[in-house]
Structures are given as C-alpha cells and as structure tokens.
C-alpha cells in the first residue's frame, strides 16, 4: 500500500477511512465499508453459534464444541462476576462480546476494515452499557443506588471526598471503556501498516519488517481476543454495581 506512493511515504491511517461502498457521499444511511464489515461480523458470529452448533450432538464436533465453550465462557463470566441474578442479561452481554470479538478478529484479515477501531463505534457501545447499567441501577435499587458513591465503611470525614472520587471515576467509565478498545485496535493496525510500509522501502532487508509484522500479527491476534474479553468483563463489573450497589 505504501509502495504505490513510492519512497517512504506511509499512510497508516488510510485503512481507517469510512468509504461508501458504491461511491458517492457518506450520509447516515449510505452502505459503507462499516456496513459491510459489521454485516460480516454478524455472519461470522452466526456461523459459529448456529452453523457450528447445528449438529446439536451429544458428543460435540469441533465447531459445536467451540460454540459451547464460547457460550459457557460468557455465561460463567456473567454469573461469577455479576452474580446469579445477572444471568437474565446474559444474551445482551453475549451479543456485545460476539460483536467486539468478531469485529476485532475480522479486522485482522489483510485489507479488512476494523469497525472497533473507530471511537464512534466503541463510544456507542460503551455509552449503551453505561446508560443501561445506570438506568438499571436506579430502577432496581431506587436512590439506594447512590450508595455506590457513599462508602459507608470509610470514616465519616472521608466520605464526601471519596464520594467525589467515586463519582468522577464512575463517569470516566464509558470513556476509558471505549477509548481502551478503539485505541488498542487502532494502534496495532497502524503499527502493522507502518512496518509493512518499511518492508516495501527497505529493499533487500525487507525480511526484517516482515518478521516484525508477523510477530506483531500474533500479538494483535492476542490483543483482539483480550480486548473483547476486557470489554465484556468490564460490562459485567458495571452490571454487578447496578445489581448490588452496596460495597
């Protein structure tokens, strides 16, 4: 990609551009590469969970086993982190996990578009979690939900200070939640692109950046899964606060 410009002009951010699929301007409903890769995310998640588990066998095939393990992994995470009464939100958490996981993984395909590298996408995800969890906290606990910010185990004099800190950290949640994911995705892909650009520019020594990109790709694979895991487990932690606000 860098080669087409010649020399060392590497454009690592071009891969993140939102483009209309069939040309023209990008308005809110235009089918874009965002649409395409989000649709592929849905397809990939459905292939694993429906096509993979289609046998419904007592002794599962590999694909069915993978689907069941994914199910069990998220189910246990919700149960262990957020408690038994959080299991009714398991489909929501599972949807989030599948979306983030497959968006991250599909983004690693060369020339793919990584939807989760966009702050607009991750911010919507994070604020959806933040707003629904906060609303849920007030609906289930009423004003007792505010006890989350009033640390009753601390000395009385410290409580207002702690309340302020808790409040700030609470509102910082969606920001860190969204920027963590988008930042990790964007940084990895940009670095990979820069290394790939070096490969074109270095001539005979091209194998050095190729090796670096290979190692980076393995790391990115790990990051893709870990970020999906982190995003989901933080959602569970926030959900736990809404269901059980007392410390």
């Amino acid at each position, binding site marked *: 990609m860098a080669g087409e410009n010649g020399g060392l002009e590497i*454009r690592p*951010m*071009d891969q*993140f*551009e*939102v483009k209309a699929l069939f040309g023209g301007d*990008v*308005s*809110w*409903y*235009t089918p*874009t590469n*965002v*649409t395409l890769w*989000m*649709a592929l*995310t*849905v397809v990939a*998640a*459905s292939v694993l*969970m*429906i096509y993979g*588990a289609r046998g*419904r*066998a*007592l002794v*599962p095939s590999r694909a*069915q086993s993978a*689907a*069941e393990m994914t*199910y*069990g992994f998220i189910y246990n995470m919700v149960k262990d982190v957020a408690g038994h009464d959080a299991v009714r939100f*398991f*489909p*929501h958490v*599972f*949807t989030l996990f*599948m*979306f983030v996981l497959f968006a991250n993984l599909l983004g690693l395909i060369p020339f793919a578009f990584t*939807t989760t*590298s*966009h*702050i*607009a*996408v991750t911010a*919507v*995800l994070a604020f*959806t979690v933040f707003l629904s969890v906060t609303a849920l906290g007030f609906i289930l606990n009423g004003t007792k939900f505010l006890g989350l910010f009033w640390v009753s185990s601390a000395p009385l004099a410290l409580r207002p200070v702690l309340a302020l800190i808790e409040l700030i950290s609470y509102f910082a949640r969606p920001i860190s939640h969204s920027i963590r994911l*988008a930042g990790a995705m*964007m940084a990895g892909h940009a670095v990979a692109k820069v290394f790939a650009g070096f490969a074109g520019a270095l001539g005979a020594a091209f194998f050095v950046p190729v090796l670096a990109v290979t190692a980076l790709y393995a790391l990115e694979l790990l990051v893709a899964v870990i970020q999906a895991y982190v995003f989901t487990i933080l959602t569970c932690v926030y959900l736990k606060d809404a269901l059980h606000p007392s410390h």
Partner: protein
Amino acid sequence: MAETAASGPGMPQLDVTTFSNQIFWLIVTLVVLYYIMSRVALPRVAAVLADRRGTITSDIAAAEEFKLKAQQAEEAYNKALTDARAEAGRIVDAAKAEMQAELDVQLAKADAEIAAKSAESERRIRDIRDSAMDMVSDVSKDVTSDILNVFGAKADGRSVTAAVNARLKGDA
C-alpha cells in the same frame, strides 16, 4: 475536520461526518445480532447443554443402579454357594450315616452267622467227644470182660460195667 481526513494524514476516527453513518449501522447490527443470538443461537446451545447434562446425570444414575444390581447378584451368588456347600455337607453326612447303618446291620448279621456256626461246631465236637467216650467205655468193658475170661474169673456184665464206668469217671 472532513477536509483534513479527506486530504490525507489525520485520523479518520475523528471525522465527525461519518459518525452518523457508523452509529446507524452499528445500531442496526447490534439489534440484528441480538435477535439472532437471543432467539436462535443461545436457546439452541442452551438446549444442547441441558440435554447433555440430563443425559450424563441419567447415565450416572443408571450406572449406579447397575452397580447395585451387580452387588446384589454377587450377594445372591455367594449365598447360593454357601447354600450349596451346606447342602453338599448334609448329603455327605446322610450318606455316611446310611453307610454306617448298613455296615452295622451287615456286621450284626455276620456276628450272628459266626455265632451260629461256632455253636454248631461246638455241638458237633461235643457229639464226637460223647460218641468217643461211649466207644471208649464199650471197648473198656469188652476188654475187661475178655481179660477176666482169660484169667478165668467170672464176672457178670453188670458189675463189669459199673467198675469200668467208675474207673472212667475217676480218670475223667
């Protein structure tokens, strides 16, 4: 911002003009994915998992039952073995007792026969001895009479007989 993103370096992530598009398609995607997962995928997987758990539980229960049955069978086998041993012992004892009784009967019969035979033999021996004694007394009388005749002495048969008998008795 739109200009900077379009014109080259800069972050497409910060191009606000594409936000509405991304957010719109994200919401569509999430709703579709949620319905596919919650209505189709998750109930299926949950059913398979529950099915498997049920099968495993019932299989373990069945195995437990079979184990119990095996234990019962072993107990029955051991009991049958003990019974058979006791029965065999009883049969051996009965046979022994029967044989002993038979033996006793045979022994008694043999004893009786032996006693009868020996009584018979004794009787015959006595007879022979008696007849021998008679013959001895007859011969003695004859000889005595003959001797007396030779010496010219007269002796009647009765006194000779009495003398011989007295003499034989004395000797006997």
